[in-house]
């Protein structure tokens, strides 16, 4: 596993305590799992995504990531409606490992209230939490 200092955590994203990242464009938030999470999970073999149009509240489980022999839940850091899911993950779940912030994004959600993301951590405070 990676040392905390080796983690790739882009400055422009926000991070949840359960290791999802959120990238904001207007009121649409792109969500995936971060480098720490993909490293801890190991090789991802399947990603279960929700249906476009589904509504979730902050903290709800919206899908699962299956790594070898383990199914882990993933949670949305913001309430809203799913407006897109990453279809490429159906055939290439390994994108979550290889490109967690770009090709391996999981969902896009239209936020009901973007200020819900204020409780998320920036890179520095997320790193502090991981060092715990």
């Amino acid at each position, binding site marked *: 596993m990676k040392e905390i200092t080796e983690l790739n955590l882009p400055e422009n994203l926000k991070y949840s305590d*359960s290791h999802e990242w959120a990238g904001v464009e207007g009121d649409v938030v792109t969500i995936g799992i971060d480098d720490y999470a993909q490293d*801890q*999970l190991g090789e991802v073999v399947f990603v279960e995504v929700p249906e476009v149009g589904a509504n979730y509240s902050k903290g709800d489980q919206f899908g699962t990531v299956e*790594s070898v022999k*383990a*199914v882990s839940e993933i949670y949305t850091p913001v309430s809203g409606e799913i407006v897109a899911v990453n279809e490429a993950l159906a055939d290439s779940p390994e994108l979550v490992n290889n490109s967690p912030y770009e090709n391996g994004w999981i969902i896009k959600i239209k936020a009901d209230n973007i200020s819900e993301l204020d409780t998320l951590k920036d890179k520095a405070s997320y790193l502090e939490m991981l060092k715990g």
Partner: protein
Amino acid sequence: MTHEFICKPPQIIDLGLIDYTKAFEMQKELVAKMINGDIEHDVILILEHQPVFTLGKRGGRENLVVSEEFLRSKNIEIIQTERGGNITYHGPGQLIFYPIVNIEKRKLGVSDFVCALEETMIRTSKDFSVNGVRDAKNHGIWAKNSQTGVNAKLGSIGLSVKRGISFHGLALNVNLDLTPFSWINPCGMAGILMTSLENETKHNIAIKSVKEKLLHHFKEITGIEI
């Protein structure tokens, strides 16, 4: 506070022979209590299941090679679960170990935890003079047969992780009747051989002695004080 939490040893509950659904409900209840803080320690369930086939989250029914009617005639249910992995069989004589552990708080990665459970089974098998090995392509533990070169599956792993808490666990074949495995492609793989500690050694092995070894190695490998 976190430190205090980590230092609390897990509670070990030996359930003996138990119905799959009952044990599953119990796990879900324990996980819920751990999430909302009613229980502040980890829990390890040790048990054997009454005969049952279970499917992984993504199924495995296609790997049943007999009819469901046939299984009904044998009084064996098929149950859908939320764990990783594919179809498998559980029955008396197979030792089940469900560590319900807050791996997030203990800073254990999921893949590391899978490896720790594999290592626990390897060391336990070694105590009974069985050479358990990993297979790069197929997780779980295999008994190495150096004469034929064909390995047979000895133990399996399937986990679920909810809010940082891992549940489900490992199943190590000790002295069970292996016949029901021939009614499926275990773990979704056709043509694999299944075995047990007793089948490998041709000696009687009591579940109780395996339990003790398994707990000992789990403690040593994970560093979780028991």
